[in-house]
């Protein structure tokens, strides 16, 4: 039993760091999408990768690195609030753009259709 715990304690930082790194990479990917996509609505989709997957991976990674269970509970609460408020703010942005009359680009889009060259 103690061997399992020792192994776990040695393995934990590596796993946590790997998850944090994966989260950071996903955040960068989301940012690349925000810069590449042509209009407001499509950019919102790219940003939601950062909102969901990147945030989840980063928080799980931090939970593996946390020194005590108290921190893990706080991280879980942070994660829950992120997942409740994230879509609300995205919807508020999209709804405001729609109400203001911003027309989305529709149909298949290639590199020439206003994308960044």
């Amino acid at each position, binding site marked *: 039993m103690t061997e399992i715990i020792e192994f776990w304690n040695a393995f934990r930082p590596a796993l946590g760091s790997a998850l944090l790194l994966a989260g950071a990479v*996903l955040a960068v*990917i*989301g940012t*690349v*999408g925000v810069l*590449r*996509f*042509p*209009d407001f*609505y*499509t950019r*919102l*989709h*790219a940003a*939601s*990768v950062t*909102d*969901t*997957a990147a945030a*989840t991976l980063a928080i799980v990674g931090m939970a593996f690195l946390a020194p*005590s*269970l*108290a921190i893990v*509970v*706080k991280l879980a*609460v942070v994660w829950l609030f992120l*997942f*409740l408020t*994230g*879509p*609300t703010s*995205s*919807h508020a942005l*999209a*709804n405001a753009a*729609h*109400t203001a009359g911003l027309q*989305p*680009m*529709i*149909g*298949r*889009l*290639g*590199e020439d*259709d206003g*994308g960044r060259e």
Partner: protein
Amino acid sequence: MFETGATGRVGYFLGLITVLVALWLGLSWDYSFKPVIASLGAVSIVLSAVLAFRFDILDREGSPYARLFQLMAYWVWLMVEIFKANWVVIKACLRSTLDINPALVKVKTGCESDLARTVFANSITLTPGTVSVEVEGNKILVHALYEEEAGPGAFDEMDRRAREASDGRGKS
């Protein structure tokens, strides 16, 4: 169908108190129960619950904890969907030539209550690649990154699960 009488409100009140106590214990992580700290916690919890009661927000939306297990089961299913959808959007972000097919579609929902509609619309927004733009009655305007991801029937399962999780399997 929904509890609105005095017993229902007592249930919502007790549910809110339970969750606030759990939140306070989880965040303070203080199990020594020193009189000063514990009494401050108790006062803040009671004050929040009484304020919620006075603001008249103690209903099935303000305190949806009776359906906690159904909502958590839905949450687990939703997480899998979110990660599947993430993969599609990540590929779209990284493709060397931009190749997307955005569309604006109207999705009809069978969700009757405000809670179920909120859960459904929030789930659509939370899933990368689709954003709910406007909710009008039982129709939700959805902007999708790929038209084929939002075709007819694409949201049927999410609609059904959101409805069952927040309103139960009954007709509603």
